[in-house]
């Protein structure tokens, strides 16, 4: 291979070999300090509910191994380890915050290592808003255990009974004489202690928190505003090559043969042809990508009759098994009691994850082992996928996760990491795969198109008489009725990740999978029932909310907004919706204006009240709410994958419209105090109501009911045309 002609004076100094320490080396360096080892007992492991995030195949059961959660070095510095990853949602700040409080050290003494399968305890993946609510208690327990050990060591060293000692800022201190103290670093000198956590130790009570519950700025912000923060694509290894990968024109198109004769010789290109993976590698990423167009590929004739316009009919007629999600009373009897009945068919389109960082990986396969840096939400899952593809035991594969540039569920699957590993193995050099935006739109696991049918009625007293709800393809997460209806039947078929064979491309978990579709259908339908009952939509909801947490967020939202009750279409453009996800309740009120000539919706104001139990980092939690509201404008108003012939026709941000600055409404977020309840999830709940709340607001503005997301100007215009004539008009 020729050496490319491109050199600059800066280059040599920029490329340093990355040889991260192995676990053995790392532990050796820490040998002077205390290591707290935590064994996940089966009962503790069960606390982190396995979410079917995006697992087309069953995940292997994690081994019951021992891994260090934290170490305390002789100088008192604490290093903690987690398999969770940082993709913007903030655990790089909130996890050290929790740990520092429980361990009684200052936050700036704590460093965190995330998403390294060699150094960190097993983790099932970062999704489902589980980091705080499910993983948090284990994490805090490890710190509490360490503190207990340090207290015991302190009692020995100070020759005092433990009851006379307290801990603070990395010291064990004599309560009778604060000058009589010894640092954690001094205590741990030369000791190596294993603790196996089998019984959850007592955790601190909220009243005793010093750091948890305080709003903290992000710890990674400085690196992210200076360009210093390293994402996977920013890593360089000596001798590395970049991959341009040949992609088929459509999903399902089979490659017959590829002719590489147009690829210039002697220009540094390396051609790799593996089963299902054809690539051109080069020392420059752009040259590798451009060279792919020089390959002449022949595919077996392939076509798909499915398009974004006939997809719902296709999905509805497909025969897949239906399951009962919730059932009570008799919908027949409820229907018989009904004074008015309302039916609706709610649709939503395929939606992309579209993180600004595309799927990226850098792999170095040497001999019988592999190290892969990957932008992934699931480092241990990626490790296993890579090991399987390479034919290595997973103990020979190490996945390291630098900062991740957004995930939203899409980086739960790691095909790019497998591709990089296979190519590195084939060429014997490190290989980076960074998907282009077009590849991202082709290979992404979209949020599935889905259909929800709802039939429901109200009785003479203005209460819901029955609720018959059927969701296809979105999954049942978030289909909870929330409202009190004795006669009900909720069924679901399919899920957000399948089954295979019905969608024209792979589908998967998208921020709060299932919930956005379900909340859109439910909350749109409730509004129509309120009108049927002649009730204000908030008053009507409260009539059916014996659930105190749901009622509380809705009352709070109404009060904070200054809600004035109104029945039917008020012309004000106000909508309301509530939801439950990840253990957190949200109630959102929005105001829109609709340009009836163009069909354009302008969102003017969004207020969200949220109850999420104890809040670890209030600043981080509010940021997540704002992010949910802003991101939710997209799937509600503009985002959809259009496609034909087995391939998306939206392949970049020129036609696939993400929310923009000019769309930004006035946003108000309120977190309701619930310090004595366990912490719940915060990364997803506030997004789930955005489709429903805006559909309701558009109806209130215009009398037009939108049954399909996104509410594009064309659909708004069609709904305006189809709306019932106002009485007397």
């Amino acid at each position: 291979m020729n050496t490319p002609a491109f050199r600059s004076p800066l280059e040599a100094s920029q490329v340093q070999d990355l040889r991260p320490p192995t676990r053995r080396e790392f532990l050796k360096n820490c040998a002077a300090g205390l290591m707290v080892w935590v064994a996940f007992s089966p009962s503790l492991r069960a606390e982190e509910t396995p979410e079917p995030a995006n697992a087309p195949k069953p995940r292997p059961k994690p081994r019951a191994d021992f891994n260090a959660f934290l170490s305390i070095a002789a100088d008192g510095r604490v290093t903690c380890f987690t398999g969770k990853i940082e993709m913007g949602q903030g655990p790089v700040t909130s996890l050290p915050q929790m740990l520092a409080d429980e361990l009684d050290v200052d936050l700036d003494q704590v460093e965190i290592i995330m998403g390294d399968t060699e150094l960190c305890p097993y983790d099932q993946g970062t999704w489902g808003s589980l980091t705080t609510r499910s993983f948090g208690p284990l994490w805090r327990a490890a710190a509490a255990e360490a503190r207990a050990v340090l207290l015991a060591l302190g009692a020995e060293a100070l020759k005092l009974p433990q009851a006379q000692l307290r801990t603070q800022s990395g010291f064990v201190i004599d309560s009778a004489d604060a000058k009589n103290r010894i640092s954690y670093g001094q205590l741990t000198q030369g000791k190596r202690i294993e603790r196996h956590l089998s019984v959850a130790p007592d955790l601190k009570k909220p009243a005793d928190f010093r750091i948890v519950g305080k709003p903290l700025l992000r710890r990674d912000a400085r690196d992210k505003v200076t360009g210093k923060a390293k994402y996977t694509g920013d890593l360089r290894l000596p001798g590395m090559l970049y991959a341009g990968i040949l992609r088929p024109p459509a999903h399902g198109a089979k490659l017959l043969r590829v002719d590489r004769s147009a690829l210039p010789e002697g220009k540094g290109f390396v051609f790799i042809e593996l089963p299902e993976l054809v690539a051109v590698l080069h020392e420059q990423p752009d040259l590798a990508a451009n060279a792919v167009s020089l390959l002449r590929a022949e595919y077996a004739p392939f076509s798909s009759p499915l398009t974004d316009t006939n997809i719902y009919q296709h999905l509805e007629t497909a025969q897949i098994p239906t399951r009962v999600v919730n059932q009570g009373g008799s919908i027949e009897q409820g229907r018989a009691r009904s004074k008015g009945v309302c039916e609706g068919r709610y649709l939503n389109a395929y939606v992309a994850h579209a993180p600004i960082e595309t799927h990226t990986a850098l792999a170095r396969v040497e001999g019988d082992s592999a190290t892969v840096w990957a932008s992934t939400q699931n480092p241990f899952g990626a490790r296993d996928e890579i090991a399987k593809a390479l034919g290595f035991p997973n103990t020979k594969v190490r996945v390291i996760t630098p900062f991740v540039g957004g995930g939203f569920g899409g980086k739960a699957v790691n095909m790019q990491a497998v591709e990089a590993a296979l190519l590195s193995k084939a060429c014997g050099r490190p290989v980076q795969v960074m998907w282009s935006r077009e590849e991202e739109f082709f290979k992404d696991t979209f949020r599935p198109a889905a259909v929800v049918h709802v039939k429901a009625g109200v009785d003479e007293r203005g209460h819901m008489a029955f609720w018959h709800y059927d969701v296809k393809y979105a999954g049942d997460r978030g289909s909870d009725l929330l409202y009190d209806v004795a006669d009900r039947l909720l069924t679901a078929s399919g899920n957000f990740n399948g089954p295979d064979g019905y969608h024209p491309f792979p589908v998967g978990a998208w921020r709060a999978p299932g919930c956005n579709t379900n909340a859109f259908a439910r909350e749109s339908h409730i509004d129509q029932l309120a009108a049927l009952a002649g009730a204000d939509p908030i008053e009507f909801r409260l009539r059916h909310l014996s659930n105190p947490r749901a009622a509380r967020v809705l009352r709070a939202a109404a009060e904070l907004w200054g809600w004035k009750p109104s029945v039917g279409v008020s012309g004000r453009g106000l909508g309301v919706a509530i939801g439950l996800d990840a253990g957190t309740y949200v109630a959102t009120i929005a105001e829109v204006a609709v340009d009836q000539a163009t069909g354009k919706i302008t969102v003017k104001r969004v207020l969200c009240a949220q109850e999420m139990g104890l809040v670890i980092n209030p600043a981080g939690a509010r940021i997540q709410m704002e992010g949910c509201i802003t991101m939710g404008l997209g799937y509600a108003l503009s985002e959809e994958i259009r496609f034909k012939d087995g391939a998306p026709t939206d392949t970049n941000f020129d036609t696939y419209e993400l929310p923009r600055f000019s769309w930004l409404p006035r946003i108000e977020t309120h977190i309701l105090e619930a310090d004595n309840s366990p912490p719940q999830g915060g990364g997803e709940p506030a997004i789930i109501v955005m489709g429903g709340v805006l559909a309701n607001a558009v109806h209130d503005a215009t009398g037009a009911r939108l049954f399909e997301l996104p509410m594009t100007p064309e659909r708004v215009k069609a709904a305006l045309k189809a709306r019932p004539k106002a009485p007397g008009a």
Partner: protein
Amino acid sequence: MTKTISFTLNGRPVQVQAAADRMLLWVLRTELGLTGTKFGCGISQCGACTVLVNGQAVRSCTESVLSVEGKELVTIEGLAQGESLHPLQKAFIQHDALQCGFCTPGMILTAYAFLRRNPSPSHAEVLAGMNHNLCRCGAHLRIVEAILSAAAAMRGASSP
């Protein structure tokens, strides 16, 4: 065809040998080792690759390396003066105006060029000025607050 292209990069003169039609983004990220400039879309739609060329915000994914011959180029790595951060960088930290951080360099440099043109923008002008930079995490609200606060700080610093 490979050419030698000379320009000023973050205050230092540099020369690179590169095919003239290569895009600036890739030359920055590979030859010049400045990875703060990000790839997001490749067609000037998202703004993650924004750099400053003679003080103007330019999308480096569609700008040829030849086009910066003789010009002054600033990337996110060159915005701070040593350890002293630019007011925009400080404001992005203080306002938590980022989540995943991938769009952040492009946001800050776009805002820098925008504030040069309009040092006292209204809220609506910031929205319009930033409208062609995409953030998927939804940090928009705080980005706007950060830009307005940085603008105020910069006006304060430059007034006599």
